[in-house]
C-alpha cells in the first residue's frame, strides 16, 4: 500500500507439466496465494510472464483473462464461494452460462460433474443445507463444469475436518488422474501435501526456497 511496494512474489521461475499435481507450501505471507492468483489470471504480474499452454497471461486483456478463467481454469476456494441463493444444480451450471454452453447439454454436464464428486442426489438443495465437505464437492463440480485443463485449489481443506479433508484431496487426485488435469494446490499442511501431491514447492518471502518430489 502507499508508495512502498512489497513484492509478494519475486523472481520465481517455475514450470509445471501438464497433468502434474503440485502443492505450494509456505507460511502466511510467503506469496503462495499470490502465485496462485497469477496462475488463475486474477492478478497480473508487474513484470515477467506467466505462460499457460504457450499463452502469456501477463499480456492478456481483462476480457481474454475472463475467457481463460472460464474455459481453461477451475477454481476451488477454502471458503467454497458457492452462491447461497442458488441450488446445487444452479451453482454448477453457472460457469456454463458464462461459457454459453447449450441448455440441453448443460443439464447433462451438471449431472455428470456432480456424479464425479459423489453428489448424485440433493441437487435441488441450497449450499447452506449441506455439510462443509459436501459444499466443497459442489465447488469442485462447479470447477469441472467447463472441463478445464487446470484446477487451482486454494486451501481446499482449510475449512474441513481432517477426515473430510482427506476425502476431498482423494477426490482431487482421482480427478487429476482420470481427467489428465493439472492441479496446483495451496496448502500449509505439509503432511497432507506429501501424501497427495507429486511435487512440493516451498515459498518464503515471495521467493522460491526449495522443491521436493514426493515418492
Amino acid at each position, binding site marked *: 500500500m502507499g508508495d512502498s511496494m512489497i513484492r509478494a512474489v519475486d523472481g520465481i521461475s517455475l514450470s509445471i507439466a501438464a497433468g502434474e499435481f503440485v502443492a505450494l507450501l509456505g507460511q502466511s505471507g510467503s506469496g503462495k496465494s499470490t502465485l496462485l492468483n497469477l496462475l488463475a489470471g486474477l492478478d497480473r504480474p508487474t513484470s515477467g510472464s506467466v505462460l499457460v499452454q504457450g499463452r502469456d497471461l501477463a499480456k492478456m486483456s*481483462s476480457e481474454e483473462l475472463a475467457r481463460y478463467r472460464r474455459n481453461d481454469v477451475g477454481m476451488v476456494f477454502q471458503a467454497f464461494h*458457492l*452462491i447461497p441463493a442458488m441450488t446445487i444444480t444452479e451453482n454448477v451450471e453457472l460457469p456454463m452460462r458464462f461459457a454459453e454452453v447449450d441448455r440441453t447439454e448443460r443439464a447433462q454436464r451438471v449431472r455428470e460433474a456432480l456424479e464425479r464428486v459423489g453428489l448424485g442426489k440433493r441437487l435441488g438443495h441450497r449450499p447452506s443445507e449441506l455439510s462443509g465437505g459436501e459444499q466443497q464437492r459442489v465447488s469442485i463440480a462447479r470447477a469441472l463444469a467447463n472441463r478445464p485443463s487446470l484446477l487451482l485449489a486454494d486451501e481446499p481443506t482449510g475449512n474441513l475436518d481432517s477426515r473430510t479433508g482427506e476425502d476431498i484431496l482423494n477426490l482431487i487426485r482421482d480427478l487429476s488422474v482420470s481427467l489428465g488435469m493439472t492441479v496446483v494446490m495451496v496448502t500449509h499442511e505439509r503432511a497432507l501435501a506429501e501424501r497427495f501431491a507429486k511435487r512440493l514447492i516451498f515459498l518464503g518471502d515471495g521467493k522460491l526456497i526449495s522443491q521436493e518430489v514426493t515418492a
Partner: protein
Amino acid sequence: MKGYDLFELAVRNLRQSKLRNGLTTVGISVGVASLVAMLSLGVGLQQLATKRLAGSGMFDTVFVTSKQDSRGFDREEDQKDQHPEKAPVLDEASRQQMTRLQYVTEVEPEVRVMGQIVYGGQTHFGFVTGLPMSARENEAFDNLQGKFFSSSDADEVILLDDFAKELNPQNPKSLVGQEVTLRYGEHQSLPAEGDASGRPQVSDQNESPGTNTGDDYGFSVVRKTQQLKVVGIVDEEPYGGMRTVSRGRIFLPVDLTEKLNMAEFSDMRSSLRGHGKSYATLTVRVKDPAKVSQVQDAIKNMGFRTFSVLDATKSLRRFFTVLDLFLGIFGSLALAVATLAIINTLVMAVLERRREIGVMKAIGASDGDVKKLFFAEAGAMGFFGGILGIALGFAIGKAINIGTGIYLRNHQLPAEPVWILPSWLIGAAIAFSILVSLLAGLYPASRAARLDPVQTPKYE
C-alpha cells in the same frame, strides 16, 4: 452470456429481494402511469378538437373579411398593412369577382340579425341567421325533423329545437308545417347628402341587394314583418356551432335574408365609413378541399383577409404540440423520481452482492457479463414497471373519462371521451420505461463490472 440466461439470472436476482425491487417497480409504474395518463389526455383532447373541426363542415370553406375591420385572425399579416383604411371593401362587386374565381361554387354572406317570432300571440326573441343551400349536407341536418328549405329564397324557416320548445313547450314537433310571423328590422337607405328632398328613400321589397352605391350615407331601420312557414326543426347548431351563422336559433334561407334586406350590425360601420352596403363576412365554398389554399391565395391577392380551417388546424396543431410537451414534462417528473429509485436499488444490490459478483468473475464472468446482468435487472424492472404502469394509467384514464362524462351530463352536454389511449402509446411507454431504466442502470452496472474478482483470500 446468452439472452435467456441473462433474463433468467436477472429475474432470479430481482426475486431475491422482492420487497425492495417490487417497490422500485411500483415506483416506475407510477411514473409510467402518470406519463401515459397525461399524454393520452393530450391525444384525447386533440381528437376531440379535430372531430369538432371536421364536424364544422369548414374544410371546403374560406372566410373572407375586409382588412378595414379591426379584428383579424392573422396578427402578423395585419401588422404589415400600414393603411387598413385604404383596403378594399367587401361589397357586391368583390363578391361577384370571387364567384368567378376558379373552383368556387358559392359565395354567401354570413347574415346574423336580431329578430322576433310571433306565434300564438306571444313574441319570442332570437338571432336570425341565413343558411346557404349547401348547409343541407352538414351533419347537423342528418337528424332534421321535417324538410330543408325548398329553395334559397323560399319564405320558410327552420328552428333550433331549443327555440321550438320555447314556442310550444308541450309539442314542439307540431310546429312543422305551421305559419309563424317574423318581425325584423329592414335596412332602408337614405339619400346622399345634398339631396334636397330629404325624404327617406324607401327601398323596394323586390330590389336586389347590393345595388346601393357609394352615395349611401345613412340608413334607417324600419320594423317589418314576414310570414314564414316552419319546414323543419334541427337538434343541434349546424357547423358544430363554430360559425357565425350557426350561432342563431332561427334559420332562414340566405337569399331570403338578403331579399328582405335585413339590417345588420355591420351596416352601421359601413354607413359611418361612408361607403355603401358591404358584407361583414363572406363565406366562399370551394369545390375541392385540396384547392382551398389556392382559392385563399387568390382572394388574398384581391386585398382581403381570409381564414380557413387550414389556418385553424395549423394553430391547433401548434397548440397541441405545446400542450403535449407540457403534459409530457409533468408526466415525466414521476418517472424521473422512479429513475433515482432504480439507481438506488441497484447500487444497494451491487454492494450487497459484491462477493457474489466476485465469485462470478473468478469462475469466468467477464466485466461485460456482469454489466449486462445489472442492465438486464434494470431493464426487467423497467419492463414490468411499464406494463404495470400502462394498466394503472389505463385505470386513471377511465376514471377521467367517467368523471368528465358525469360532469358533462350534469351540464346537459353529450359525454365524449377526453382520454384516449392509442396503441402506439402503449408500445412507446413500455419502450420508454425500459430505456429510462437502462439509463438508470448505467452507473450501477459499470460499478459492478469494476469490482474485483474474489481472490484467493490472504486472510479473510
